[in-house]
C-alpha cells in the first residue's frame, strides 16, 4: 500500500515540476501579488500632498501646520489665501486634501466650538481616508497638549472625521498576512482540485482504476503531493514576506508551520471534494473560484467577522481560512502561542478531519 502511494506521489511530483502554469502560480505569482499589494498599501500613504487655507494666521494655526508636516503621511505643498482657490488643486490631483483653518480659531477656543474643515479628493478614497486620519491625529495631539496647558474641559477642536487613525505599517501587515494566507489557500485548493480532474479528463483515471490500486490509495496519493507543494509554497512565501517585506515573526516558526500544514490538509480536503464533483479541469477551477469568494467573504479578509450577522458568524466558523488568518496574525504579529490560539487550532483539526472525511467518502462513491 505504501509502495503504491509513494509511487503515485512520485509520479505527481514529476508532473508538477513540469507544469509551467503551476510553477508560475506557486513561485512567481505570490512574489508579484505581494509586491503589488505591499506597494499599494504602504507607498501610497507616504508624503501625500495637501494644501492649507490659513485664515487665522495665529500661533495655533502655525503649530497645526507644523504638526501636519511632522507626520509621515502629509506634506503641506501650498498655502492658499481663500477657500475659492482649493478646487483647482484637488481637480488636478495636485493635492489629496485641503485644510481650512477659519479666522478667529484661537478666539473661538474660549467658546469651545472652533471649526477646522478638511476637504478631500473622494476619488482617492484609500489615500484620502489616510490623509484624514493623519490630519485628525495631528490636530488632536495639539488639542490634547493645549487642553492640558489651559485646563480646558470641552472638546477643543472640532474636526469632521470618520476614520480612526492606525499607523500605516499595521495596515500593511494586516493585508500582507492575509495575502500570505490566501496564496497558500489557493495553491492547496487548486493542486488538489485539479489532480484527479486532470486524470479524469485525459482518460488516465480509468487506466488507474483497472489496476490493483485501491481507491483510498489513489485519493491519499493525490492528497499528499498537494500538501507537499502547498507546504513548500508556505515556506517560500513566508520567507518573502518575512525577509522581503519585513513582516515581523514574533512567535514560533515550528508552531506556525505545523498549524499551516493543518490548514493545508483542511483545504486539500475541500479541493478533493471539488474534484469529486467536477467533470473537467475548467469546471474545477470555477468551483475553486466560487469557494474562494465564499471563503474570503467569511474570512474577515474584507469585512471583519464580528460585523457579520449572527448566523453568518456561525457559518464563518466552518471555513478554515478564517481560523488560519487569526493564527497567522497571532503568531507573526503578536507572538501568540497555543495558550491563546488553541480554539483556532482545535477548529482547524476538526475542519481538517471533516473535509478529508467528506472528500474520501465523496470520491470513493464517485470513483465506483
Amino acid at each position, binding site marked *: 500500500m505504501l509502495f503504491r502511494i509513494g509511487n503515485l506521489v512520485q509520479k505527481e511530483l*514529476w508532473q508538477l515540476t513540469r507544469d509551467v502554469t503551476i510553477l508560475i502560480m506557486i513561485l512567481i505569482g505570490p512574489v508579484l501579488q505581494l509586491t503589488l499589494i505591499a506597494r499599494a498599501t504602504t507607498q501610497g500613504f507616504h508624503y501625500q500632498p495637501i494644501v492649507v487655507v490659513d485664515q487665522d494666521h495665529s500661533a495655533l494655526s502655525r503649530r497645526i501646520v507644523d504638526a501636519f508636516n511632522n507626520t509621515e503621511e502629509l506634506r503641506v505643498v501650498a498655502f492658499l489665501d481663500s477657500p475659492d482657490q482649493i478646487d483647482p488643486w484637488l481637480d488636478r490631483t495636485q493635492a489629496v486634501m485641503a485644510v481650512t483653518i477659519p479666522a478667529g480659531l484661537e478666539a473661538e477656543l474660549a467658546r469651545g466650538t472652533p471649526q477646522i474643515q478638511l476637504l478631500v479628493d473622494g476619488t482617492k478614497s484609500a489615500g484620502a481616508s489616510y490623509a484624514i486620519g493623519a490630519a485628525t491625529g495631528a490636530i488632536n495631539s495639539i488639542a490634547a497638549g493645549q487642553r492640558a496647558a489651559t485646563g480646558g474641559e470641552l472638546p477643543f477642536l472640532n474636526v469632521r472625521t470618520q476614520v480612526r487613525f492606525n499607523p500605516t505599517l499595521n495596515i500593511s501587515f494586516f493585508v500582507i498576512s492575509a495575502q500570505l494566507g490566501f496564496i497558500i489557500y489557493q495553491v492547496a485548493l487548486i493542486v488538489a482540485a485539479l489532480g484527479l480532474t486532470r486524470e479524469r479528463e485525459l482518460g488516465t483515471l480509468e487506466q488507474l482504476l*483497472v489496476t490493483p490500486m485501491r481507491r483510498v490509495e489513489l485519493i491519499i496519493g493525490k492528497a499528499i503531493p498537494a500538501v507537499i507543494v502547498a507546504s513548500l509554497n508556505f515556506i517560500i512565501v513566508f520567507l518573502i514576506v518575512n525577509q522581503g517585506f519585513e513582516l515581523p515573526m514574533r512567535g514560533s516558526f515550528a508552531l506556525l508551520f505545523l498549524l499551516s500544514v493543518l490548514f493545508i490538509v483542511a483545504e486539500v480536503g475541500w479541493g478533493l471534494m471539488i474534484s469529486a464533483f467536477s467533470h473537467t479541469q475548467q469546471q474545477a477551477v470555477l468551483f475553486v473560484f466560487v469557494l474562494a469568494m465564499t471563503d474570503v467573504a467569511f474570512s474577515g479578509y474584507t469585512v471583519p467577522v464580528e460585523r457579520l450577522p449572527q448566523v453568518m458568524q456561525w457559518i464563518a466558523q466552518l471555513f478554515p481560512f478564517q481560523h488560519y488568518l487569526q493564527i497567522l496574525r497571532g503568531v507573526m504579529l503578536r507572538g501568540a502561542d497555543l495558550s491563546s490560539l488553541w480554539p483556532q487550532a482545535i477548529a482547524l483539526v476538526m475542519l481538517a478531519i471533516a473535509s478529508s472525511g467528506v472528500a474520501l467518502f465523496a470520491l470513493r462513491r464517485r470513483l465506483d
Partner: protein
Amino acid sequence: MTEDTFAIQTEKLSKRFGHFVAVNSVTFNVRRGTIFGFLGPNGAGKTTTMRMLLGLLRPSGGKAKILGYDVAHQPRAVKKRIGYMSQRFSLYDDLTVEENLLFFGRTYGLRGARLRERIQYALRMADLIGREQTPGRELAGGFRQRMALGAAILHDPELIFLDEPTAGVDPVSRRSFWELLYQLVNDEGVTIFVTTHYMDEAEQCQELAFIHGGQIVAQGSPADLKVTLMRGVVIELTPDDPPEAMRLLKEASAAGALRVDDIALYGAQIHLVAQDAAQAQQQLAEVLTTGGVQFDPPDVIRPSLEDVFLSAIR
C-alpha cells in the same frame, strides 16, 4: 474444468441506466488463449459490457467471472491478472516513455530487477528502444498505441482488454499491431478481448460476438458466422451509376418487382441479399436495363462479415 477453459464467462449480465437498458442479459464465454472480437455499432453496449468486465461499472444483474474470479466480489484478484488498453491510449503526455512504464509497472507491484526486465521487454516489443526519454506527447499515433499496449502487459497479464485499439491509427501501424497481438497469443498464451467496428479486424479474431441493442445477436468464428447467420446469398453488382442504380433497385424492391431482403451500397458496388439468386439476378437486370443503367454481369459472392452483420441485425 471450465475455469481452465474459459478466461471470461458471463451469465445474464445486464446494465440499466435509469429506464435505459444498455446491456440486456448477455451470456458468453471466451476460451483461453484466443482472440475474441466484440463487435457492434456505437451505442450497442460494447463499452458498457467491457466496463463491467473490467470492474469499472457495477452490473445491474447477472454475473461475470474473469479467469475464474467473480468480478463483483474479487475485483482485486481480477485486476492483478488483466491488462487494459483504452481507446485513447491513456498515458501521461508530460512524462517520458520510461517514466510512464516505471509508474504503471510499480502500480502493478513490480520492482527491482523484475521491473527493469519487464520494461525492457515492453520497450522491445513496442519498438521503442531509443525513445525511452521521449515525452508521451511527442510520440506518433502508432508508437503511442504500442506504448499503451506495452504499459498494459508489463505485469504479464493472462487476459488483455483492448477497446477499439486501432482507432485513428494508420493501416501499416494497424497491421503491425495485430502481428503483436498474435505474438502475445501464440508465444505467451494470453487471451485477448478486443472491441472493434472494423470488419477486417473482426475477420482476424478466432471468435466473435455481435452485440446490438444491448443483446448478443450472434456468436461464433468468422467462418461459422458466415454460414449460419447469413440468410440468403449475396449478389454483387457493379453499375456505371451506383446512386441511380440504388434508387431504381429500391423503388423496384418496394413495388415488389424485385424480390430481395436487402440492398446496400459498398463504394462502387451494390450488394443485394436474396433467397433466390437466379430470380433476383434476372429481376435486377430488367430493372436496370429499363432504367438505362449499364452494369457488369452480377455475381454471387462469399458474404463479407459486414454483410453477415447487417443481415444479423436486420
